[in-house]
């Protein structure tokens, strides 16, 4: 997913001389082509995220389009107030490229996980959040965002995320995407865990004869309120699945919207309110935390009984 996004940014930088890419000293083996071909507009700011966001703000205020690349916690948490005051309050054309969605960094440990990022960025005025499910969607989203002129956070995985969408996929920013139309229950999901949800739904179908509707909320903000309400109305229980904490992410966003209009049971599936000290690959961690297909299947079955 990451390489597809960087390719799109390369194209924008080749076409538009007012485009910059800043990095907080990360992107080794990823950003070299951009560095070599646009040396003045590629800036390794150093390990200094507060300064990096401020510089991006100054560049944007002088009319530039700015991309910022870093690992999610450093990009969003270290410099949160700079994002709020400098980028959001001034509504600037800055795209935050956050790498390592959820537990993508697996063996690197909790410091590198991103399980609270959506929770802290959702409340910021003018901030949009794009959380692609695969490379096809990521590329389509970046093409749309090439002409977007406001702060936006892109929640990126790493590489080798499974492809879910087909090549003719029509992307629409701010509009949810229907993965499968079912009958019995509705699952809202986001990011690369969508793949696990699809697998879990196949298990539901073969083992229990349950066919869920699966909706991919790739734009967490502005979120597709109308569709969420429409789909919630049709189902007895609403499920949300995300590789993010249960507090403040997709599940909270859906609950905010639905609870304002109807009484409805909402089951949020995500990580719990705890520090993760587990060591292992992303797939091991998903499995252990009940966020792989089997775990999601079990949680849904349990909620239905």
């Amino acid at each position, binding site marked *: 997913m990451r390489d597809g996004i960087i390719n799109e940014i390369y194209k924008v930088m080749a076409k538009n001389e007012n485009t910059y890419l800043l990095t907080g000293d990360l992107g080794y083996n990823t950003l070299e082509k951009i560095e070599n071909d646009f040396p003045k507009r590629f800036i390794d700011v150093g390990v*200094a995220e507060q300064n990096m966001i401020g510089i991006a*703000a100054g560049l944007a*205020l002088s009319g530039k389009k700015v991309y910022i690349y870093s690992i999610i916690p450093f990009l969003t948490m270290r410099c949160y107030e700079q994002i709020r005051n*400098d980028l959001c309050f001034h509504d600037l054309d800055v795209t935050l490229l956050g790498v390592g969605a959820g537990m993508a960094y697996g063996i690197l440990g909790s410091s590198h996980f991103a399980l609270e990022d959506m929770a802290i960025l959702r409340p910021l005025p003018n901030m949009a959040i794009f959380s692609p499910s695969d490379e096809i969607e990521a590329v389509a989203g970046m093409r749309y965002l090439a002409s977007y002129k406001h702060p936006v956070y892109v929640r990126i995985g790493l590489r080798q995320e499974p492809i879910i969408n087909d090549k003719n996929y029509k992307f629409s920013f701010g509009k949810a995407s229907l993965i499968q139309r079912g009958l019995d229950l509705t699952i809202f999901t986001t990011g690369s865990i969508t793949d696990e949800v699809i697998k879990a739904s196949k298990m539901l179908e073969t083992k229990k004869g349950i066919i869920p509707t699966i909706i991919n909320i790739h734009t967490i903000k502005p979120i597709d309120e109308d569709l969420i309400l429409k789909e919630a109305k049709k189902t007895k229980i609403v499920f949300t699945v995300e590789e993010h904490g249960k507090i403040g992410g997709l599940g909270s966003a859906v609950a905010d919207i639905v609870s304002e209009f109807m009484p409805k049971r909402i089951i949020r599936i995500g990580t719990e309110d705890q520090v993760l000290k587990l060591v292992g690959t992303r797939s091991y961690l998903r499995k252990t935390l009940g966020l792989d297909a089997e775990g999601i299947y079990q949680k849904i079955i349990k909620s239905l009984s």
Partner: protein
Amino acid sequence: MSNDKNLTETAKEIRKYIIEVLRPKESHHIGCSFSIVDILTLLYCRVLKTFPETPKNSRRDIFILSKGHAALAVYAILCKKGFFKKGTLMTYEQDGSWLPEHMSTKVPGVELSTGSLGHGLPVGIGFATSFINDKKKNKVVVLMSDGELNEGSNWEAIMYAGHHQLNNLTVIIDLNGFQGYAPTKKVIDLLPIKEKIIPFNWNVYEVNGHDFKAMEKVFNQIKNSRNNKPNFIIAKTVKGKGVPYFEGKFESHYKSVDEKTKTEILKDLTKKP
């Protein structure tokens, strides 16, 4: 010399504007506004290229007040320069006004909303980088407080600007010796600042922040310097400068003034030569 007299007159008028705006029952950042009046007067009358009729003119120099709590002094000089009317200045902090206590870009001539310390210099670096890459002549000036140097973001920025040789960037430190809770010497003693900045590859100047001639000399040196370093001016100032009632007093940082005192200060400012 007559020119300096004009500066003195302008500075006095700015001080009067500030006093006029104060509302007796409320506390305002007074001392820290007065300490930068002379610096702002020199900047806006002699150093910065500004366009009051078209504030966003692409040839303008960029001024950022990073110590956003002293916005009142900037609003006063922007008003004096004709960016907006006196009547607008008089709405300062009132319900429905667009002039809050801390810097706001809603005010014509303001480049960056500030109020949280340590934001101005990184943003100034962004502007400076953009101008250098585009081979533009615009200058960038960031005014900060001495207490503000406690913020780590400034040191990230100081390292960066020196390394990247941003010679169109000037930082001014308003060295008034006080910060929010206590004297800077007591909280975190930063002195000597000069010796800390030079090794980061900056030109450093020390000057009396109330001496127009000396400050102008520094800006001329900066204009003529060809060594590709950013510029750091340590301007020694007096908190509450120009009004004996506030001068050098810690409590003037955030203070209210009753109507009687206000009248006395204004009378004093008017009659002084």
